[in-house]
């Protein structure tokens, strides 16, 4: 098939179109920004018209929202949840705490930069972003998906070593699977 590149492009377009219009967000409020998720999902801002729906378990979810600061205890669970999710999976970092530690930059229990531990697709800055900026974050993610640039799932898998060393620096006893097959 000499034009398998084109046919592959068509299949990619259709797949990205469906991934873009149906994002399942994991129901996990990791930080203080989780109060704006109900506001975004309910009747005034209504993220469901974009096809964004809540998913109860990581198996069914595509998008993991890190809403605000992330303490080391939560980071351990977030990594576990992120690895349970199925590719293609996306991470959205909420608020300035995920960008550079935000207001808790000097706290002994919260991490200062999220992308050392997890590949992040979209950051939404603001100290607790409003529902409008949350939706604009989702729309930005949808554009990335449409252009096929949101493949951080593979990036995490390829340089797992880099992420693992960073993660193990903070999480002391690592009773979690290592996936070093």
């Amino acid at each position, binding site marked *: 098939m000499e034009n398998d590149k084109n046919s592959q492009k068509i299949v990619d377009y*259709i*797949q990205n179109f*469906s*991934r873009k*219009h*149906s994002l399942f967000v994991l*129901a996990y409020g990791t930080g203080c920004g989780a109060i704006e998720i109900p506001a975004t999902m*309910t*009747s*005034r801002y*209504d993220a*469901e*018209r974009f*096809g964004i*729906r*809540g998913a*109860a*378990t*990581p*198996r*069914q*979810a*595509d998008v993991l929202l890190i809403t605000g600061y992330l303490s080391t205890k939560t980071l351990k669970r977030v990594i576990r949840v992120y690895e*349970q999710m*199925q*590719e*293609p999976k996306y991470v959205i970092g909420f608020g300035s705490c995920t960008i550079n530690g935000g207001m808790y930059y000097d706290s002994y229990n919260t991490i200062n930069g999220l992308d050392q531990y997890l590949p992040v697709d979209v950051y939404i800055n603001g100290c607790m972003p409003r529902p409008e900026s949350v939706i604009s974050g989702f729309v930005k993610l949808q554009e990335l998906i449409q252009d096929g640039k949101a493949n951080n*799932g593979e990036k995490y898998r390829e340089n797992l070593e880099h992420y693992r060393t960073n993660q193990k620096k903070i999480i002391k006893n690592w009773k979690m699977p290592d996936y070093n097959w």
Partner: protein
Amino acid sequence: MEDLGLKIFGAILTTFMAFAVGMTYGGIVRKLTARVQNRYGPPVYQNFLDLLKLQSKKTNIAHGFMGHMAPVWIIIAAVTVLMFIPILNGNLWFPNLSFHGDLIFLLYMMVFGSLGMALGAGQTGNPNSAIGVTRGLSQMVGYEIPFVLALVALMIQYETTSVQDLTQIQHETGVWNAFANPFAFLAALFASLGMFRYSPFDIVGAPAELASGPVSEFGGKYLGTMMSGGAVFAFIKLTLYVHLFFGGAGNPDNSGIWATLAGIGILLIKTFLLYMIPVFYGWINPRYRTEQAIRYFWGWPTALGILGVLWAVYIY
């Protein structure tokens, strides 16, 4: 057997129609629910997009043999039961094996869907799905009793177990079974609330309690297949109810293109209206606990079912 090709084409067409109708009903209900909750809600074809996305997932995490087999089992059960359901009574296009099957056989086959889900969920080892399975089976025991009583009442009333004869009788007498034996119809209606797993009875996959119960470990392609199986099952139950109580769809004598399309139109209208009953009931009701749900089914619905049987035996 000159129209064998026609029959095979009809069967394939039924499967796709059942799948498409089931998914669109889901989309319409999502849109209506959103409107009632004063928001716009997703487009009507959102379920198809969700299904396409789930199917296009790259990694698929399965838990052993039964984890693979559960969605396939559900789809097999759905399509086989679909074949034995009369779509349009006496129509040349969609006979599908409906003259063979009868009520008792259908009763057994309809359980296969939940059985597949139960076995798959058991294999995953997630405690949430184990509890979800026990709840699903206990709820099924709950709503099976009024449902079976209603069907037995119909069988006794017309001394036949074949769904086709029942629709035929309704067509000839012109009296719908819903009015011929109102108690049996009410019992079956209450049972349908349990079947569609809408709000008062969504204890099986209750997100707040069990993190979506049996399907909690199924994602990607498995979840997509289960979703389409669920849509086909919804269509099956609706058409069965319409044929048993609302006089089926389409007139048997002429099988012209227009008559068939008109029959399908009537079928869609009737099934959609019937589908709205559990949805309306679910919009304004919170969820029961497990034992409350079972006690609900063994209360009034069973009494109505028994009345239906007595009505069929003595009065009719």
